[in-house]
């Protein structure tokens, strides 16, 4: 059974630049703090581990998976959900399936994504 190791994650978070896991971090200045290599690896992992199949390539969600591009979870919370999901999501229980490091990279990728635009600014979504 997976046991979350806080120390490991703190180290990983520091390594990846994930020091301010808040909504504000999604701004471009906060994104700049994230290690670009980690973000790129996270983007690749997102495809390799088929996260995109339900959540879309940019985490925007679909009819089968919720949007996660604006996740407010901490890294630890994110890993907890992936290891022991509550709903229909398949459980990635162990590091044999996906390592903590790979998960942290995915988290970095998600945190690097820009906030979606306000629907009021998109004319197509305000037409009849």
């Amino acid at each position, binding site marked *: 059974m997976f046991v979350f190791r806080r120390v490991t994650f703190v180290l990983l978070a520091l390594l990846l630049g994930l020091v301010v896991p808040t909504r504000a971090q999604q701004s471009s200045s906060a994104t700049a703090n994230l290690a670009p290599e980690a973000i790129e690896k996270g983007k690749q992992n997102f495809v390799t581990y088929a996260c995109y199949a339900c959540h879309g390539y*940019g985490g925007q969600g679909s009819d089968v998976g919720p949007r996660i591009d604006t996740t407010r979870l901490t890294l630890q919370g994110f890993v907890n959900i992936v290891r022991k999901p509550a709903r229909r999501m398949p459980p990635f229980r162990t590091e044999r399936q996906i390592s903590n490091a790979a998960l942290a990279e995915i988290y970095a990728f998600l945190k690097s994504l820009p906030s979606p635009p*306000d629907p009021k600014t*998109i004319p197509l979504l305000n037409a009849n």
Partner: protein
Amino acid sequence: MHQEKGSVDRRSFLKAAATSGAAFVGSQALGAQQAEQAATAAPAQADAPTVVEITNDEKHGSDFMMDVLKPLGFEYVTINPHSDSGGLQESIINYTGNKSPELITCLHEEVAVAMAHGYFKIEGKPLAALMYSSVGLQHASMAVYSAFCDRVPVYMLLGNRVWNPDSRSVRDPAGLARDFTKWDDQPVSLEQFAASAVRAYAIAMTPPLMPVAITIDQKLQESRIPKGTTLRVPKYTPNAAPEGESGAVTEVARLLVNAEFPVLAVERAARTAAGLDYIIELAELLQAGVVDTIQRMNFPSRHPLSQDAAVLREADVVLALEQPLLSRSALKSSAKLLSISSFDLFTRSNYWHFGEYQEADLPIAADAEATLPALIEAVKRLITPDRKRTFEARRAKLAEAHQRTRERNRVLATHGWDASPLSTARIAAELWEQIKDKDWSLVSRSDGMSDWAWRLWDFKKYHHHIGQSGSLGIGYSNPAAVGAALANRKYGRLSVNLQNDGDFMFLPGTLWTAAHHQIPMLTVMHNNRMYNQEVMVVARIAAERNRDVSRCHYGNVFDKPFINYAQLAKSMGWYAEGPIDNPRELAPAIRRALAVVERGEPALLDTVTQPN
């Protein structure tokens, strides 16, 4: 016993067609009220000449077959040609002039049947599909199954050699599809053909509507009919559709009117545009929420009473209209489940399309659309001013919920708005902007692309949507869309097909048929380069087994090489653009493609999309 008879005299035939055939054209399965109107409107049917004299030696069996088939009103016969039905094919071409019916050339029998499937869902009457009884029906079988599950009549004509079999003949050709057809026959005489052909049509068009098959013997088609022979063309009059028993209907009305929070659950309830109107009327009378699985254009997408499925959990009374698979587990335990469905009036036992037994408190085995007028009248009689006030309060609550859903969808659509590959919400929104002021028709499933078309477009007319596929069989959508577009053509409607790439590659030859017969339509590819549903399935199973999820793409992805759908479409005579993966290129490409469609040609946009 084989009896070869003489041919039908053309003058006699034309007289018969003029007085009787026209009255049959366009007839649909009728409720009692509709049947009464039809009988009043078309008294000529009763006097239709049904006996014709053969006055020369120039007529052949297949000519008489056309004398029988033509009055049934087939606009087209979809065909993949073969030697054993060459006689009938020649009669269609030269005896009846390739007009009503006109041959539609298909490059695969599955296309021929699936086109008929899509055509019916717009036009409300069947096409005939002419194919080889052995390998032809084998090719067509999945499409037949889809039509069966979707309760759509397809009229199949199977060429065979009954009297002089060869190595490709079949003793019981329709047996292959008997698990998913409603009726079949293999007539061995022209008299039997005439009776069976008309009977097959009547059976196919009586709810529950389903495919039928008539085998046509090669020798029977090609033999001359001796002069002096008298043959009879049976009169076709539509069956009145089965209506619910009046006492049970009154009880349903009582339960609905007295309910605190009734919900209508609709699936294949609206067979025709009238059905759509009935459901709207019933919902508005009761101010009841409507939950739609959208297997038909049952209810307007933006109607304030249109609700998410979650509302079923709040209902104390649920009326399922042609939704025989609605499970009690979707409702709260104290809820009463009422059901009106023709499903139990005919089914087969081999395929589990029938699902689990529905534990309804008041099940009525009848056609929902035919029963709705009586139900509406019963509801009207029972509504008191007091109840009406309660209903109005309910409407306000439901309208708010509907508006919240619309707002939520608007916000969800923004996620990935500028993404590449393209967001399916963006594709739906860009399309809507350019079609919303036209007479449009979505001729594909709406449950692909994360339902975005249904979530963003204003579906309100019956032809706005043909519903889903029935069997979920891959390969249905492309030819069904072309069939529906064929039906839309004479009305000048803009047919739009949101086309999954996996489905598309089963029957790409469908494109040729659309180009050859100048069927205007816009196909927009949902090109995610994979069977994404299966990616998710294998990922889930691997995860649950604590195995390597990263290998879930094996067998499910077709991205190396990328299939160039635009090149493929161009090779078969379509206007095409793509691949398009930049969202900014989408609107101009749609504009150019629509200009092509509006001048009567098919156009395809290969849009590279998100998985869902």
